[in-house]
């Protein structure tokens, strides 16, 4: 029986981008509902902080610093999850950088590569190594975090836009490949959410916020709840779909 208060009891979850923003909020939510959580992120400091705050509420958290644009480090993170938690059931591929506002013709090639690496390659490596581990565990679910830019062209953010469109394709194809293996794969599409990423360009964020029908930006905790729904048993018949948490932004 699933405990309604601890629906993720006995599950092991891995969340990338767990230093700041939607990642730690998701990790916290998962831990509160019973999962042991592996927090993956580039900077050890914020990871430790997030892990400590989970432990402070008697949750189980293991920080694992890694550069997710490096396939070996993504494989090591999955290995660490299986090693420390005994298995892997749930994963959230949630890393994202904007690359900074720039016209395509002015966009530095290195900046482009970095956006591709962190936003797209990381999701691919994540799926590549998480899926076998989840099948071995007997099944589970993965959520890839995209953006409203998966559905629109965002001027001055071409690389970012391209990666978010690509995450949708990755999610759809991978979900179909695994429709029969017990691994559900979905996309969570956040709109304007108050995170460090949205603070990198306050003017753009303010302009975007003005366009949100609900009149304000979202909070990481709200996005986390939606991610956790997609990961939960209640979403057992949901795969390859995308779920927008955008206050009506894309309407």
């Amino acid at each position, binding site marked *: 029986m699933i405990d309604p208060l601890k629906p993720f009891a006995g599950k092991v979850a891995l969340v990338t981008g767990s230093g700041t923003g939607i990642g730690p909020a998701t990790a916290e939510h998962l831990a509160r509902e019973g999962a042991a959580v592996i927090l993956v992120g580039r900077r050890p400091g914020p990871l430790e902080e997030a892990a400590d705050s989970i432990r402070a509420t008697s949750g189980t958290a293991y920080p694992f610093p890694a550069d997710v644009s490096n*396939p*070996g480090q993504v*494989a*090591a993170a999955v*290995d660490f999850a299986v090693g420390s938690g*005994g*298995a892997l059931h749930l994963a959230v591929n949630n890393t994202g950088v904007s690359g900074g506002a720039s016209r395509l013709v002015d966009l530095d090639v290195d900046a482009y590569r970095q956006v591709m690496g962190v936003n797209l390659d990381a999701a691919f490596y994540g799926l*590549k*190594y998480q*899926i*076998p*581990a989840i*099948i*071995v*565990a*007997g*099944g*589970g*679910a993965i959520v890839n975090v995209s953006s409203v830019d998966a559905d629109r062209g965002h001027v001055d953010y071409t690389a970012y836009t391209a990666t978010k469109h690509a995450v949708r394709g990755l999610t759809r194809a991978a979900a179909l490949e695994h429709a*029969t*293996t*017990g691994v*559900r794969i979905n996309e969570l599409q956040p709109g304007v959410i108050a995170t460090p990423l949205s603070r990198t360009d306050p003017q753009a964020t303010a302009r975007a916020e003005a366009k949100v029908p609900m009149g304000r930006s979202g909070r990481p905790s709200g996005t986390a709840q939606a991610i956790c729904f997609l990961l939960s*048993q209640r979403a*057992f018949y949901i795969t390859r779909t995308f779920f927008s948490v955008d206050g009506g932004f894309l309407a």
Partner: protein
Amino acid sequence: MTSTTRTVSQWTPEQIPDLSGRTAFITGGNSGIGLETARVLVRHGATVILAGRDQRKLDRAADGLRLEQPGADVHTAVLDLGALALIAAAAGRLAKTATLDMLFNNAGVMNIPERRTTADGFELTFGTNRLGHFALTAGLLPALLRALAARIVTVSAIAATWRVGRQEDVMSQRRYGPMRAYAKSKRANVVFTAELARRLAGTNVTPVVVHPGSAVTNLQQHNQSPLTRAVIALTRRIAMSSPQGAAWPSLYAATSPDIVSGGFYGPAGRDQTSGTPKRLDPSTDATNPTEGARLWTESERLTGIHFLAVTSTRPRVSIHS
């Protein structure tokens, strides 16, 4: 194992397709059926990893294959199926990032005169033949799941159908008999494969179980009695197939497109001791899901390795019979 459900006319290893770029892991790969399996796979372009306890024997076998077939891509892995820690170490290196297309759970011990135990305290025959391969399959599964289509070929034996193999005392604690323990382990290989097929339904991994017929290999080396040895020497010339023929069911199960997940394959010849491989009906309750679940739980309890938990997310597809 009395009735035949499907006959394959005249299969020979010549029908194996090009295996370039495909990798096979073979336990007991340095001798007997394992080495012969490796030889044929290499001939068809596959990369093989020979696994066994003794690095020198592995090297000798690998060098032999390279000599016979220049350019052969042969690797070795030291593996003691009687030690869970060593299995985890050997599998762990591969499981992290490698892709594996074929796993042959081929190694086996038989006819150990007195009850002995593995490093983990399991009865040696069941511990090696069954539990060691349970742990290895768990450890290598991530690598198999990365392949486009992977096969797990577990080698059983005619002994799988013996009545004594149906005993529940898998550790032979109440009563030990050399062939009794062997029969238990080989019947358990059939039960395991059927259960594995149920748990892997819908994935790219197809488990199959085979029996090689009656082959003369190093397995019989534990036969102590001079009379037994004399009988084997005689039978060897008259009836028993060579390792060459005995590898056919394994090769067929690993490469034929015409394979049923969880199926039991063996030689089609008279008395099922030789000939072209075909699918057999175990005619026992070895494929019963209740027994499969029981063996799985017991294997998990004994090894402390838990994998492929049955969850409500996974569609329960029954295997065709």
